[in-house]
């Protein structure tokens, strides 16, 4: 008996609508977030993540309204990320109905944000979102939607975020994002082997076998899915059935 592996559905949200970037560009409209989130819960998703890529203030207030509408209809945990710059931003998202918040660029610019958020709201609701790109034998952390290099080593940064107070790591491979060629297992296992908090694999899922590998070979606690689900190629129930057949402990929808 132990924690089951989680399958998390991620919706990239812009101005209240779902979009999914391929390699962080070429945004394509995929529909209403609340309807999609409910559909994924019914299929057996263990959690939902909204990553907001709105750049404007109007987009931000639309997001909070969306979180409110979602929280009233969703009965699995909801994580909200994107543009979390201050404790006030975080408080607003939690008040609106988010269970966890993901900190990315702002945490690189001001690492104390992790500590401030953890002290005020608890580590269990602070997720460190790390976008990493392979650079020879190591991985570099990028910010601003994967456009800006930081010079930070992804494995070292993951450890640092945890020390600062993050209770979970959402690790996205920029190289694999949208490619459906599998998660970056090397990156994953390097981070998972040093992490003292759960690690969520992100970027590259193309099949149930890729997700299984993220758990068994990458050491991930959870796997994030986006484009693979929204495209309708497969659904969470089929993925979980396949995982279960491979001996992975996952929760099946009632």
């Amino acid at each position, binding site marked *: *008996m*132990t*924690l*089951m592996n*989680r399958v998390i559905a991620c919706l990239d949200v812009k101005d209240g609508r779902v979009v999914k970037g391929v390699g962080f560009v070429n945004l394509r409209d995929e529909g209403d977030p609340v309807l999609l989130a409910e559909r994924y*819960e019914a299929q057996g998703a*263990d959690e939902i993540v909204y990553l907001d890529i709105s750049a404007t203030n109007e987009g931000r207030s639309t997001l909070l309204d969306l979180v*409110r509408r979602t*929280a*009233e*209809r*969703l*009965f*699995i*945990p909801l994580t909200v990320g994107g543009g979390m710059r201050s404790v006030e931003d975080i*408080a607003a998202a*939690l*008040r609106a*109905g*988010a*269970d966890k918040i993901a900190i990315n660029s702002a945490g690189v610019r001001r690492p104390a944000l992790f500590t401030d958020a953890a*002290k*005020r*709201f*608890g*580590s*269990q*609701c602070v997720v460190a979102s790390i976008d990493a790109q392979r650079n020879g034998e190591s991985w570099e952390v990028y910010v601003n939607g994967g456009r800006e290099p930081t010079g930070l080593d992804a494995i070292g940064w993951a450890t640092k975020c945890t020390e600062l107070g993050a*209770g*979970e790591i959402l690790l996205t491979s920029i190289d694999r994002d949208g490619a459906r060629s599998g998660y970056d297992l090397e990156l994953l296992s390097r981070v998972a082997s040093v*992490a*003292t*908090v*759960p690690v969520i694999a992100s970027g590259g899922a193309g099949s149930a076998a890729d997700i299984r590998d993220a758990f068994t070979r990458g050491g991930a*606690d*959870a796997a994030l899915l986006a484009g693979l689900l929204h495209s309708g190629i497969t659904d969470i129930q089929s993925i979980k059935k396949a995982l279960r057949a491979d001996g992975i402990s996952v*929760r099946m*929808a*009632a």
Partner: protein
Amino acid sequence: MTHIGIFDYGAGNLHSLVKAIEGADRSVSVDTDIRLSLKGDILILPGVGAFGAAVAAMRGAQGYVRSALADGRPCLGVCLGMQMLFDSSEEAPGSNVGIGLIPGRVMRLLTPKVPHMGWNEIEWVGSAKLPAAYFANAYVCEPDDVSSVLAWTTHQNRRFASVVRTANTVGVQFHPEKSSVAGRSFVNGVIDEILQCK
């Protein structure tokens, strides 16, 4: 009409909890004043994340909760709300924040991975009521008397009480309101059960 009072002693998300337990024959109110929450037929101590803020907000409320529970008021504690039912917590050393209804302490999880985050199985002492639920906790309850434990859960090398009960007070370490359809039906069942034995 049953009235449920949720005591809001922090900045946590209570939307899902309210929606999970609302019904045609039930009204739910969320209040930051414990005296208002205690006007209901049943008190819910929800699970919010920030212990420090919770301690501050709880200060002064323990006495009211303690005497209401002693008078037989049904109560459900969720996550941190369950931990509040105990005497003391390592998360707030030296302070006497607990309601002290269930003798015992709240201890930090000393497992390789903390927090204990995600869906885990529930091992019932008696008949199984919910096979698995969503947890997000870094601390666990250690009751002095294990006869109050209705169910256990194991995270890595640590087994801990995930459901406790004494008279008509129930504490759950997981989040039923975040445990999808099965969690909602479980929490509504618990509410009906503890109301009946009032």
